[in-house]
């Protein structure tokens, strides 16, 4: 009895040690690697790859580690309280998310913000877009081992985060956009500070090209890696700079303009190759275009109210005084009991990573009946399943970084 149980233990120990090199359904001897949530190169998600030698044969993205149920939470909260919820997942370009939600809400309510508010929203959205692209390039750099790109990305981004701090009072989560306008006006010194920052960024872009984009090692790692063909990108519903690097010039700011974008002058960068290098190039070009948009917006900034007159009518005298003296909106009681009429509304915006969709179903009560929200990273997850097989294991971080995929944004 004892001898046979020891023998069983020995055999099972042997089996456990060889458990990984079994034969899977493809008939190959594959090694399954879990690039899991505590891996330095995975972010908040788990990527299961099956590797044959050095080639990835199958890839299964396992998302949902940071699922915060924002859609369900909003069903129990008044409309105003969803604004901070909506900006938390997409922590880097928060403003386009709030703009989208408030656009859908304003369509339900049937009001439109005054022109100055539209320009302020646009300017903040472009500042956060630059910050988001710098973050994306920084993450790509550290995945490739290029620590200088990482530190420069975060260092340069600090400038724009500080500017947003000046404008809205918070560094990353602003809650700046409210139904009917914006919450604060820009300070007096703001245009000069912005101009200084933009000039600094233009100088830095030249350094970036020298050390990162024209670096032979980086070019070797990114060229011809993760090629996404045009019809695949369209079929899979990919969005954002990933789509534009594959030859489709779709940008929501041009196709379906919102806020002040139809009055501003900018171009949409498009590349043809569809590889990781093209995606990175498109992001750098978008930074340049965002610089142009911010300059244009500052030049064309109209004067006037920053909150819709219908809402301003509901200010009590103290709020009116504060608004006139410091141009800050103190929320009137209407915001707490905001009851938009029964109906549905859809809005979409171009966030830093692509197109975000907002759909609100209202039944006339102060809480939304259903809030549906799709983020660009959520639509890009499918690339893990279809684009990665066939590449080498070391290409996985390169492709992941070039997609600028942000797990909390995908999980919402």
């Amino acid at each position, binding site marked *: 009895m004892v001898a046979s149980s020891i023998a069983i233990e020995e055999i099972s120990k042997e089996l456990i040690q060889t458990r990984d090199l079994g034969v899977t359904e493809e008939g190959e001897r594959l090694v399954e690697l879990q690039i899991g949530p505590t891996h330095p190169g995975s972010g908040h998600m788990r990527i299961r790859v099956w590797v044959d030698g050095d080639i990835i044969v199958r890839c299964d993205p396992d998302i949902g580690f940071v699922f915060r149920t924002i859609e369900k939470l909003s069903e129990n909260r008044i409309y105003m309280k969803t604004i901070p919820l909506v900006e938390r997942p997409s922590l880097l370009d928060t403003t386009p998310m709030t703009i989208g939600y408030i656009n859908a809400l304003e369509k339900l309510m049937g009001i439109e913000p005054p022109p100055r508010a539209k320009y302020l929203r646009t300017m903040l959205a472009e500042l956060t877009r630059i910050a988001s692209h710098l973050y994306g390039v920084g993450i790509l750099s550290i995945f490739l081992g290029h620590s200088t790109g990482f530190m420069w990305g975060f260092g340069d981004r600090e400038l724009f985060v500080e500017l947003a701090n000046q404008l809205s009072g918070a560094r990353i989560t602003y809650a700046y956009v409210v139904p009917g306008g914006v919450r604060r006006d820009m300070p007096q010194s703001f245009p000069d500070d912005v101009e200084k920052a933009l000039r600094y960024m233009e100088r830095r872009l030249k350094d970036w090209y020298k050390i990162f984009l024209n670096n032979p090692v980086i070019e070797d790692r990114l060229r011809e890696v993760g090629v996404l063909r045009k019809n695949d990108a369209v*079929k899979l519903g990919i969005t954002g700079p990933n789509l534009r690097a594959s030859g489709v010039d779709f940008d929501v700011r041009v*196709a379906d303009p919102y806020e002040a974008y139809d009055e501003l002058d900018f171009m949409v960068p498009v590349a043809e190759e569809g590889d990781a290098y093209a995606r990175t190039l498109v992001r750098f070009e978008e930074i340049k275009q965002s610089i142009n948009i911010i300059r244009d917006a500052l030049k064309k900034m*109209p004067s006037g109210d920053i909150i819709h007159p219908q809402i301003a009518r509901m200010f009590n005298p103290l709020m009116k005084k504060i608004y006139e003296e410091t141009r800050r909106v103190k929320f009137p009681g209407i915001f707490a009991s905001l009851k938009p009429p029964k109906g*549905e509304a859809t809005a979409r915006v171009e966030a830093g990573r692509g197109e975000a969709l907002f759909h609100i179903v209202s039944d006339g009560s102060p809480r939304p009946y259903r809030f549906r929200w799709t983020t660009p990273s959520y639509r890009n997850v499918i690339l893990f399943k279809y684009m990665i097989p066939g590449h080498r294991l070391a290409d996985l971080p390169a492709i992941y970084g070039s997609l600028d995929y942000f797990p909390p944004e995908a999980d919402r």
Partner: protein
Amino acid sequence: MASQQPQASQQRLALGKALEELATRLSEHLKGVATKVEADKRSMVINIEVDRSRILEAAKILSSLGFDHVKSLTGVDYPDKGVIELMVHIGSYSRGLRRIMAILRSKLDRKDPRAPTLTQIWPSSELQEREAWEMFGIVFEGHPDLRRLLLPEEFEGLWPGRKDFEIPTRKAGEVEEPWK
């Protein structure tokens, strides 16, 4: 800036008219398949209501007209009417149609919500159908890989997206896994 206002509203009127025209043309293509096609000028969408048995047909027609990807696929739960409405936002990357979206709606029986999978027509709906299944319990017939996407294993048999899902709250002194 003031001079741009009438220009903008004129533009909007023209857009609204174009949207209505597009909606009438779409309803011609979808004759007999869709029960209702109407334009929503505020959101620049065209709502297309179909019966459950005609979802695939309508999807094929829309795909051939140029709508090439799914932006969002989800359900809306109406427990008092006994239906779960499947709501699919479809868009297009082609030049003419990229300005609008179409919303394909279909009412499914709440006690046994089943719908045909749209992955054969629009591969972009693969992961979104998984999420709709795990949130509402809508079984997509023919889906290649219907399993949970965002929720952990403890949510077997629970459909959190539905209105009758009791959101677990923790009382003082309670420990982990209150949904068991």
